[in-house]
């Protein structure tokens, strides 16, 4: 079985920066909310129920998984930094990380699927993949759901569909989301217009880390809010139809910037790159902001020596829990900012002087 620490130095498949439209679409994700028919929902379940739910679902997951590929961890047994580490990698939700009840998560070693036990619902199945590929993700997650369901009875209502702890998820229990990198729409101040039109058609827009998170690094997740009265295919189609439209807007905004203010754009990208490779102390927020410009610069051919997967990885590896795991030490904010700057210098200057970070 895989161990948590095996994940530290590498990154999940979804950061690979490949797949259709990968310059703008970071990842495609679907999650399904499921509950067992014979137990109260999580918030009402007593510790004994929760332990039983955990045991039952764990057994089922172990039966269908390839053991070498699987990481199974009980949330209660984790240090805070490890919980945060899993949140930063998008493998568990913040709510799950903060929970003090018998919960767990099963993850495959490529970090494509993650099954959360006793989060808001008994089971939350997530499948995450790089690029725009909703059909593919649906096929995978649907198959996992079917396999689990072979031996587990889900709470299902003839008229209302899959029953969930919160009525906002009832029906399909499905949330389809696509994470987009939209820096040019932000620079050209058109992003609010895009949001307003998405809200009109009942789609939600969230930041990098879901509900309530700020739009760090110009990343936006677009997802369905409605889960009842539309089939899974209809929900996929709704998101699948709108994403290319937004991609097109972003490309138009990029073309506009290249044509109309090439010097300013090139300047912004070069300065961002310059700060990231020379700073001695830098906050997470500033890092995200500057990495976003660098990522845009790579996609526009302004920084030919850098590659998207490496930058994608820096977005995640420079976050607080990752820095601490990578450096093997507990760090306060000040030390983290120094460690972050060092990490960035090491990774962005590697071709020039390998010993640069240590030499000074």
């Amino acid at each position, binding site marked *: 079985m895989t161990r948590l620490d095996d994940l530290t130095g590498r990154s999940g498949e979804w950061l690979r920066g490949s797949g259709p439209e990968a310059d703008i679409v970071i990842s495609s994700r679907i999650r399904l909310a499921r*509950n067992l*028919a014979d*137990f*109260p*929902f*999580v*918030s*009402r379940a007593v510790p004994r129920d929760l332990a039983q739910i955990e045991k039952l679902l764990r057994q089922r997951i172990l039966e269908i998984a390839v053991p070498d590929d699987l990481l199974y961890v009980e949330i209660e047994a984790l240090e805070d930094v490890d919980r945060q580490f899993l949140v930063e990698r998008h493998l568990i939700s913040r709510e799950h990380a903060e929970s003090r009840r018998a919960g767990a998560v099963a993850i495959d070693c490529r970090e494509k699927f993650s099954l959360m036990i006793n989060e*808001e619902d008994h089971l939350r199945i997530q499948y995450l993949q790089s690029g725009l590929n909703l059909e593919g993700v649906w096929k995978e997650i*649907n198959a996992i*759901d*079917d396999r689990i*369901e*072979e031996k587990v*009875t*889900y*709470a*299902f*209502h*003839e*008229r*209302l*569909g*899959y*029953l969930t*702890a*919160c*009525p*906002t998820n*009832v*029906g*399909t229990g499905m949330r389809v989301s696509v994470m987009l990198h939209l820096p040019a729409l932000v620079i050209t101040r058109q992003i609010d217009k895009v*949001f307003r039109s*998405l*809200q009109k058609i*009942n*789609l*939600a*827009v*969230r*930041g990098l880390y879901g*509900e*309530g*998170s*700020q*739009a760090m690094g110009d990343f936006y997740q677009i997802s369905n*809010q*409605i*889960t*009842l*009265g*539309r*089939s*899974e*295919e*209809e929900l996929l189609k709704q998101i699948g139809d709108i994403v290319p439209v937004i991609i097109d807007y972003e490309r138009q905004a990029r073309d506009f910037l290249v044509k109309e203010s090439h010097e300013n754009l090139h300047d912004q990208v070069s300065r961002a790159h310059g700060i990231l490779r020379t700073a001695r102390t830098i906050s997470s927020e500033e890092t995200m902001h500057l990495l976003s410009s660098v990522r845009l610069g790579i996609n526009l051919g302004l920084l030919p020596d850098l590659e998207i997967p490496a930058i994608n990885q820096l977005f995640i590896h420079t976050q607080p829990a990752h820095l601490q795991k990578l450096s093997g030490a507990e760090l306060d904010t000040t030390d983290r900012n120094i460690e972050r700057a060092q990490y960035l210098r090491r990774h962005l200057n590697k071709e020039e002087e390998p010993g640069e970070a240590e030499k000074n």
Partner: protein
Amino acid sequence: MKCQKCDKPATFHITELAGGKPHELHLCEDHARDYLTSPGSETGLATGLVQQMQEMAKQMAIGQTADELAKLDQQECPVCGITFYEFRSQGRLGCPHDYTCFEDQLGPLISNIHGESEHVGKAPKRGSGGSEKRTQLIRLRREMKEAIDKEDYERASEIRDQIKRTEAAE
């Protein structure tokens, strides 16, 4: 009870479920209208959700006096024991049976959130219990007949397989 924003009597009792911690508001008609129609909120990004939750809160409160609300609130699920008040304040239901026993209260809420009241899409292959399994079989047989009527034999054979699987399920 007085409105929290002026001296008029509070006729609207709103439970705000958005943004983590639920909180209660007691407002007069004018202030309630202002509150419910003002665009949310602290997190510019989640406005869609906040608005939706406000709609949801509105649906729960409008047209009901405090007494009526109190009565509805006290209703309790015989299976898990949660009261409707507890659901309103936590935003989470207690067990699958709540959808049946709070049907009158949840029905309008669900229609408001989703704009629909009936599930379309995937269903577990195994029926979850005797009566539901039977109704599922009834529905499948009807769907198979409809498919045959439409000469969609591929779909009909899919449904036939599904019926076989449902029957074979424990």
